[in-house]
């Protein structure tokens, strides 16, 4: 029998994060791509609850100029 695949563990659940904060762009930067779009759940490895919170937080941060929505070339 092939080995069982590893059990899916959300990193945010593991760290006991209840609410994702939009005020910490350094943290949110871990969950966006090179071109500044939100990474999919496949790549973030986060549960659905936290993925939805991340999406809201990133959008709020974008609105307030904490994160960019596109990548700017210098």
């Amino acid at each position: 029998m092939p080995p069982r695949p590893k059990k899916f563990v959300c990193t945010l659940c593991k760290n006991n994060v209840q609410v994702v904060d939009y005020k910490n762009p350094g943290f949110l930067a871990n969950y966006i791509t090179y071109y500044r779009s939100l990474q999919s759940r496949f790549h973030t490895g986060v549960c659905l609850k936290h993925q939805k919170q991340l999406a809201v937080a990133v959008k709020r941060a974008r609105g307030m100029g904490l994160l960019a929505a596109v990548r700017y070339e210098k």
Partner: protein
Amino acid sequence: MQQYEIMVIIPNSLDAKAAEKSYKDLNKRLADEFGAQVTFEDFWGERGFAYIINKQKWGYYAVSQFEMDPTRAQELRHELNLDKEIVRFLLTKVDPRAPKPQKYADMQKEYAAANKKKAEAAKDAKPAPGKKAKLTTVKEDAPAKEADTKPTEKAEAPAADEAPKDAVDKKLDAIIDESSTDL
């Protein structure tokens, strides 16, 4: 009563003191006109934008939390939209499960410490032979981070330059004196 959080950007046409004052005025206005109880105040200070807003590259950020009657929220939004001393604002409900609000300075420190830990862990992991290097996603420094450093650089730069400037001035004076004597 509902717990709200507001983040405002104050334009960089004001200097730091005036910006802080206008932020405090805003808090006062919340208390007087909207019957809000301000529970948390934090003036972040200068911070660069991740993209250009109103043709400007930076502004003053400030965050405060308060309790307010939810029926007044619409009115507050309307007033803030008309306010010319606010570039942008974000009024959000505070999740009851959210931890206590943190000051910006503490947040920065925590983030720096976490980054240091990560860097050290990466260093320790490198010498271990036999293991393949992990595939990491492209983690390019977000422009916001660069923006973080901008204001501090601004603050540090003049202090560092002062001493050499004096020396250069003296040298120039000496050269001028010499040249005048030669003539």
